[in-house]
């Protein structure tokens, strides 16, 4: 197959497993090494466009690799032009990749979303009370939001973070009371983490905490915020 782009799935430390599974569109998986690092890729005539099926296919490849070795997952759609470019990437960023691989070794990512109940705001039902004082209304609203996010941190984040190696708040959460975070959890603590999520669900009334995983450590591939 003479593809024109190399689609990269993951970077790993000296990979010794077999690459049996196929990649996107059934393309065979290949590995290329530079020093202590390897990149797993497949060749394609054109860069694959994301759709639900291909997103899961990418995920499947990365999860399969994760079973046999320590890896850093690539973002969907990461392509390079040639094997030389791929080797160059491994060479150029060796230090960063080695450090990141070490940081995620033996751990997986768990995703947590929760929706805390938003208490009925009595002020909302009596707008006239603060129409004359917009500044007060603003401060009250701010305090309410602040309080809510502290609640989430206190009630959900803290007990979960205690079981995690590290965590990353995930941006883009919608309405008040919404909570979203990623946790890097030791493999042996995954079960305990799931149990604690269950406990949270049974102890926090009107709050749904959902946890998915184990995921490859997508949210923990680099140390510095991007």
């Amino acid at each position, binding site marked *: 197959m003479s593809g024109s782009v190399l689609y990269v799935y993951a970077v790993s430390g000296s990979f010794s497993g077999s690459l049996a599974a196929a990649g996107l569109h059934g393309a065979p998986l290949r590995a290329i090494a530079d020093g202590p690092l390897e990149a797993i890729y497949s060749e394609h005539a054109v860069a694959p466009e994301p759709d*639900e099926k291909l*997103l899961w296919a990418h995920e499947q490849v990365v999860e399969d690799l994760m079973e046999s070795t320590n890896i*850093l997952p690539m973002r*969907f759609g990461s392509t390079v032009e040639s094997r030389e470019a791929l080797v160059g990437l491994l060479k150029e960023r060796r230090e960063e990749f080695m450090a990141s691989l070490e940081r995620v070794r033996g751990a997986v990512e768990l995703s947590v979303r929760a929706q805390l109940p938003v208490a009925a705001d009595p002020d909302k039902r009596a707008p006239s009370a603060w129409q004359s004082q917009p500044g007060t209304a603003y401060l009250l609203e701010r305090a309410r939001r602040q309080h809510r996010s502290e609640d989430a941190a206190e009630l959900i984040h803290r007990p979960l973070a205690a079981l995690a190696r590290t965590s990353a708040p*995930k941006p883009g959460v*919608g309405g008040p009371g919404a909570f979203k975070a990623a946790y890097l959890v030791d493999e*042996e603590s995954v079960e305990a983490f799931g149990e604690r999520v269950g406990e949270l669900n049974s102890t926090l009334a009107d709050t749904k905490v959902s946890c998915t995983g184990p995921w490859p450590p997508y*949210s923990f591939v680099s140390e510095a915020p*991007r």
Partner: protein
Amino acid sequence: MSVDRAQAERRRKGEREAWQARREASRERQQQGVSRALRDRDVSLLDLVDRLLAGGVVIHGDITLAVADVDLVYVGLRALIASVETIERDMGVSLTATGPSLKGSPL
């Protein structure tokens, strides 16, 4: 010292085996068409999109989906997004709105 090492090795071996057993169990569930251990299918889809399009190692300069283009990618994923909009609403998460959630994860 060597006792410590032997213990550590035994522990690692035990951990590895437990992990593989969990993996095996999860694979079986997948084969049965059931979502993974902790997964709920629709929430998984949200998390999948969130991770694969906003997380992971980025190849600077060579990447097809630059961070700034993620919104465009989402336009191309309308069908996918439509199917999860209900969940977003129910869960109060904003994935499709203006896209701040996709401008890269904090780490």
